[in-house]
């Protein structure tokens, strides 16, 4: 939890500091912070359909939050410095002061619930509550309904589980991998795995954000897509009518 609070504090501090001194022509630090935001906004614009601007903020916020939380988890001292407790059977247990936030299921499940509420909320807003329930509860040939309704509901819920467990599993496995390598190989080989964990931290943040975006896009497009009988509306080519990027405003 401390890791997550630290991550949000870092983001908040950078935001406040940069908005005070933001200039039209970005300096080095400003360009460094603006680059991932503009890059991700470009991706959301390319794949998010017409209403991309509504949820781009949420997607970018999730990406930055998870990325900073993951990177904080890789700092030296995190997860190692802590208070030693007596365990149930008299063994010594270390309770670290700061842990990698993603190695705690509460953090990832909380984020996944945010994403879950977001994509159901956007689905209801786009199709109306009746349209959303109809999409969830009914199937195309009517006689398939009793079979497909539970599958629909389970697939919605499994998104929640897979989103949270993916981030948790990757970050937790990364921690275990690093400590195992430290015990096995000693000095220099763990550095390679630390580099690998940097890549994992980035990719998992990106995956979480992109999956949230894809689910939102699917929830919005569900109705439209059904009418056209097109099952793959998630990846539309860049829309010529799409509004301009936030960077160009």
């Amino acid at each position, binding site marked *: 939890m401390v890791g997550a609070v630290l991550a949000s504090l870092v983001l908040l501090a950078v935001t406040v500091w940069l908005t005070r001194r933001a200039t039209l022509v970005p300096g080095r630090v400003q360009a460094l912070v603006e680059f991932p935001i503009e890059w991700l906004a470009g991706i959301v614009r*390319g794949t998010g359909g017409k209403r991309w601007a509504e949820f781009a903020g949420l997607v970018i916020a999730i990406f930055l939050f998870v990325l900073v939380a993951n990177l904080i988890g890789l700092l030296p001292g995190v997860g190692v410095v802590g208070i030693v407790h007596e365990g149930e059977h008299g063994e010594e247990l270390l309770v670290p002061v700061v842990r990698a936030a993603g190695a705690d299921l509460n953090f990832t499940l909380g984020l996944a619930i945010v994403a879950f509420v977001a994509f159901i909320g956007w689905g209801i807003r786009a199709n109306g509550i009746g349209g959303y329930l109809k999409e969830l509860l009914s199937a195309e040939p009517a006689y398939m309904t009793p079979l497909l309704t539970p599958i629909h509901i389970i697939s919605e819920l499994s998104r929640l589980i*897979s989103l949270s467990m993916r981030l948790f599993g990757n970050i937790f496995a990364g921690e275990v991998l690093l400590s195992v390598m430290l015990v096995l190989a000693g000095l220099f080989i763990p550095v390679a795995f630390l580099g690998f964990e940097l890549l994992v931290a980035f990719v998992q943040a*990106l*995956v979480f954000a992109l999956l949230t975006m894809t689910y939102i896009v699917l929830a919005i497009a569900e109705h439209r897509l059904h009418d056209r009988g097109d099952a793959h509306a998630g990846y539309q080519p860049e829309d010529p009518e799409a509004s301009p990027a936030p960077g160009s405003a």
Partner: protein
Amino acid sequence: MEFQLLAAGLAIGLGTIGPGIGIGIGFSRAMEAIGRNPDASGTLFVPYILGLALTEAMAIYALVIGLILIFAVG
């Protein structure tokens, strides 16, 4: 109790075979596509990452089963 740990190990070990093959196939096809058309690497990136994440989800389910076997059962 010991069989629980064995079951957890088997669950994650066998459960990662499929996703491993799947990610390998996906990656090889992505490399092939980039080799044929290097300009497409930008457009391939997002669908590739998403496909990787969805394939990986199967391994994550195996991990969940393993964790349940260790911590939640008995």
